[in-house]
Structures are given as C-alpha cells and as structure tokens.
C-alpha cells in the first residue's frame, strides 16, 4: 500500500531522514522502533504531508500513486489518517464538531466517544487542557470517525493510564482489523494497513503486528518480526542495532 523510496527529509534546514526506504503492505500492521531523535515522527509527519517536512529527494507512493507533493487533505482523502504525538490546540473548536465533520455523518460518533470514555470531552475545545492520555483518546476518536485505510500512529500508548489503555487498545484494534470495506479513500477494497511508532511495545498486546522496522539516525537499521525485534531491543538496546547495521554494511562492502 505504502512505498517509501530513498526518502531524504529536511526539517528547519537540518536533514533528519537520509535515503530511507520502507514498505507497508496492504493488510499489514507495521511497527517502527527506534531511539528518541531517530526520525520516526518525522517519517510519519512527512507521509501525512505536513509543511515544514521538506522532501529533498525520494518518493512516497500510496497504492502506486506518487503522493510526494500532494497537500495534506488530498492524502487524507486517499485514505491516510494520523494520530499525532502533539497535535495543536484548537481554541473555540469543539471536539464534537470536529468529529462530526470528520465522520461526515457515517458513524455513530456519540457511541464511539462513550466507548472511549470521551463523552464529557465532546463539548470541550479540541486538545485544550487535555492530558497526554486524553489527547490519545481524542485522536483515536477522530481517527475512528475518519476511518482511514492507512493508519499512522505516533506512540498511541504513551501517557495513557492502565485502565484507559484497554479501551484505547480495543479501539486501535477495531480501527486496524475492523471491517475493511468501509474505510475512507479511493482504494476501499484494498483493506487496511498501519504504521505504528512504539517505544514500549505495549500496543502489541492489542494489535497483531506483522512487521517491524528499527530506525536509527534517520534511516532503517533493521527489519523483521516485530516481537523478536522488541525482545532484542529490550535485551541489548539500540546500540546493538547500530553496531549490527555497521557490521552488515561492512560485510556487504567486503563482498563487493
């Protein structure tokens, strides 16, 4: 579904992603690991198309279409939806109204809000005075209303309390593995896919992840089975990934 080819991205004049390539296949839930500052959020923001994330070279393709230069809303229309790590406050815009506009009346948003224990937030201004966990729940509520085909989640579990994580996890699960023929975007029948950033791996208790990538210093250091990757990272830390990548590169060079 999503193909990223040799992507180099600059933020504020600094190169953050270097020649990065990865794929997210239809029906696959893909997990991104990596230390702080490795460029995971930058990758997601770039895929969504936010300004300030300047693509210097490389392509982003969605279902074969080059979307590298499309505006944010055109990407949303084609089925990409994102949970941001730190979304902006929208003073004066009630969460209820945003959810209504996002769902275009296709969803029972009141029910979803109730399931996420967000009913009392519906009358509040979007993100204003929300705690970290409340922001996550609000983002999931919006995403559920939006129902994208390609779901980008930036640390869905961070800041969420032990009780809420159950509800949130269940909603993320529904979002990814729920009935695919309702999802937004022009390739409706193509099913869903996800790219999820996680540090703790906690979200893997709720969603079946198929593939994992480890990012270090703005490029992909490793890929494989997400649970195995997580175990390795827990045991040996990210430094091992970097060392491993360098070793592999050396091996390749020697072979050449």
């Amino acid at each position, binding site marked *: 579904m999503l193909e990223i080819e040799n992507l180099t991205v600059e933020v504020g004049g600094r190169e953050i992603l270097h020649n990065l390539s990865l794929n997210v296949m239809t029906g696959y839930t893909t997990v991104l690991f990596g230390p702080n500052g490795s460029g995971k959020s930058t990758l997601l923001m770039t895929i*969504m*198309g*936010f*300004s300030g994330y300047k693509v210097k070279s490389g392509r982003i393709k969605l279902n074969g279409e080059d979307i590298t230069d499309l*505006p*944010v*809303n055109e*990407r*949303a*229309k084609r089925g990409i*939806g*994102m949970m*941001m790590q730190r*979304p*902006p*406050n*929208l*003073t*004066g*815009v*009630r969460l209820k*109204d*945003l959810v209504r*506009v*996002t769902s275009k009346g296709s969803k029972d948003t009141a029910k979803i809000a109730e399931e996420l224990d967000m009913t009392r937030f519906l009358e509040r*201004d979007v993100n204003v005075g929300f705690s970290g966990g409340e922001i996550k729940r609000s983002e999931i509520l*919006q995403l559920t209303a*939006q129902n994208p085909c390609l779901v980008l989640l930036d640390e869905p579990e961070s800041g969420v309390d032990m009780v809420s994580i159950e509800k949130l996890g269940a909603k993320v699960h529904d979002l990814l593995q729920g009935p695919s023929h309702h999802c*937004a975007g022009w390739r409706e029948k193509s099913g869903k896919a996800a790219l999820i950033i996680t540090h703790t791996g906690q979200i893997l208790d709720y969603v079946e992840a198929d593939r994992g990538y480890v990012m270090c210093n703005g490029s992909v250091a490793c890929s494989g089975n997400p649970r195995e990757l997580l175990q390795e990272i827990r045991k040996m830390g990210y430094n091992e990934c970097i060392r491993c990548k360098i070793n592999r590169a050396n091996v390749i060079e020697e072979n050449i």
Partner: protein
Amino acid sequence: MVSNEERRAKEALRKEAKFGEEIDLEEYDEGSRGLSGADSLEDLPSETKSTMLDSGIVPSDKGKAGNFLLMDNTVVHSSVMGSGVEVMPLSHALKAHDWLKDYVWKAVEPDSDKYTAETYLQKADGYFIRALPGAKIKMPVQTCLLLKNRNTKQYVHNVLIAEEGSEFEVVTGCGTSKNVEKGLHLGISEFFLKKNSKLTFTMVHNWSEFVGVRPRSSIVMDEGSTYINNYVALKPVKTIQTYPTAHMNGPDAVCRFNSVAVAHPGSMMDMGSRAVLNAPGCKAELISRTITTGGTVIARGQLVGNSAGIKAHLECKGLIMSDKGVQIAIPELEARVPDVEMTHEAAVGKIAQDQVEYLMSRGLSEEEAVGMIVRGFLDVGIRGIPDHLRAEVDKILQETDVRGS
C-alpha cells in the same frame, strides 16, 4: 431659560471625539419622527422583519418580555408582555416618572463630544427599560434600532435601570434597511444597576458599507451587581467607534464584556471596553476577538483599579486574514492602589498553519479548515451569549465571509 447642561452641550457641538475619525453631521438628513407605528412586530413588512432577524431580533411577541422598535427617529412599536418590567419610549417615561430626570444624562455627559452634544440638543428618544425591585424576568426584552431611509441621521437615547435585586436580559439589534447605503447612528445608552441586580445586554450590529456608528454607553454599578455585555459586529460598516465604560462603584460588582467583530474591506472599527473598579471585591473581564479580512480594527481595552482587592483581566486577540487588513490592539492597565490583581493578554497575527494542517489531515479542505478555526476563534468571544440567541448568532457567523481578500 437655558440650563447649564444645555449651554455646555451647545459649546461641545464642535468638540471632536477622543477616538475615531470625525464625521460631518451636516452631511446627513434628520431622521423622520413621523413614521407610522405598528401594533405588533408581526405586522411589519417582511423586508423589515428579515432585517430584524439578521440583527438577532425575532419579530414576534412570543417568549419575549417586551419589544421596542425605533426606525429612523420614530418609535414605531413599544410593548410589554411580561410582568415586573417597564418598556416604553424614553419620552413617555420622562412624563410617567418624575424621578427619572435624576438619571438621564447622568451616566453620559452631554458635552463628552459633538455626538453626545447633538443627541442631547435634539432631545433624542429611545427606549426606557426598567426591571422592578426583586423582579426576576425570565424572558428577554428585545429592542431594535433600524435606519429606514437613506442618508438619515438617527439619534437614540436609551436608559436602562435594574432595580435592587432584579434580573433581566436585553437584546438590541441594530441594522440598516436594504436600500440605505449611507446613514449615521448616534446612540446614547445609560445603564443603572442597583444593589444585587443583574443585567445581560447583548448587542448585534448589522449595518452596511456606508454607515457611520457612534454609540456612547456608560454603566453605573452598585454593590453586588452583575453586568454582562455581549457585542457582535460581523457585517460590513463604514466606521464604528465605541468605548462603553462600566463604573463599578459598589463593592463586589462583577462585569464581563465579550466582543466579536469582523472588519471587512473598507470598514474602520475602533472598539473597546473599559471597566473602572472603584470598590473592593469588584471583578472585571474584558474579552475581545477581532478579525480583519481587509479592514482596520483597533481593539482597545482599559482597566482602572482604584480600590484594593479588585481582580480584572483584559484579553484582545486579533486575526489578520488579508494583506490589506490592519489589527491594532491597545490594552491598558491602570492601577492607583497596591493590592490589585490586573492582567492582560494581547495577540495579533495570522492563523496558525499547524492548526489548518491538523484539520486538513482529517480530510477538510484548506478553506473549510480555515473557516472552522476562524469561527472557533470568534466563538470564544460569544460564549456568554444567551441560549435563545445562540442559533441566530451562529447563523450570522456561518454566513460571515471570513476569507481574506
């Protein structure tokens, strides 16, 4: 015999106002005082009714404590449906209540500027609304001030009295009939809030491109009284200059001013609100949200702390939607004693790109996203608006063109 007041007013006929561009009063014709009356607002021509609706006034008796309509300089309609409240033309009230002379022209000085002087000398009529002692009036009193004929000069003098322990609500809609390109509105409003009374006053301005507007309002507040002022001006206007002032003279009085305005291309809006906190325990909050889509907005605000133990906050925020638009925020804090808590927050700028893109990432087009953010921005300024008006104001807001030119 020429009274002292009259002499002072005559001397002030050429006195320029402190703020706002000067308007030549000679350019306009006297508004008619002889238009025919209407027994009910429902009997009015549909065009007039639709102008009223656009100004937040429902042309019906239902659910209202009283109705009042002034067109040009004629009181066309005045009625009371509820009990505990008086609604009548000021000219009648002056005959009915001998004591009223101790109120008129006591909150606003006739010689403040040439506009007050002219209104004084013309013996302008307007509405008199009084809530009787202890009366809690559930339904609002509606008043409507319309310019009916072109090139008209309208003078209005209103007096509102909230007697001790009373509570009431007034909605004033001001507007211009369709064919009126040019006009002038001069409006004096004097408010007297007695001990522990409460008044919610909402004013909706719905003028047109060539109308000049110079309201002069002053609110005198006794102990424990509460005054809430909502001001909505979303339509084009040539020039408005207004700076209502609350004189909080009794302890523990509370006032709140919420203002929202859009300056369209060609509009010059100089609008402020001022609270003078003269007694301990007084609280004031002045909030304004202004947008320019090509016109000029000057958002003024002033808090004067004259007593210990007062608390006051002033907030002017402005959005610039066009290269041609100008936003000027002038917040002033003036403390004359220690032990006061006075704060202000002013910000002007363009709409934040990250907010627009956040909404776009949910599938909204750029235009839809900007519209939603701008309406939200204005919405903060009208959250104090009474529920029954909410739908009308929301409608005006939805119809307001907030795109920059």
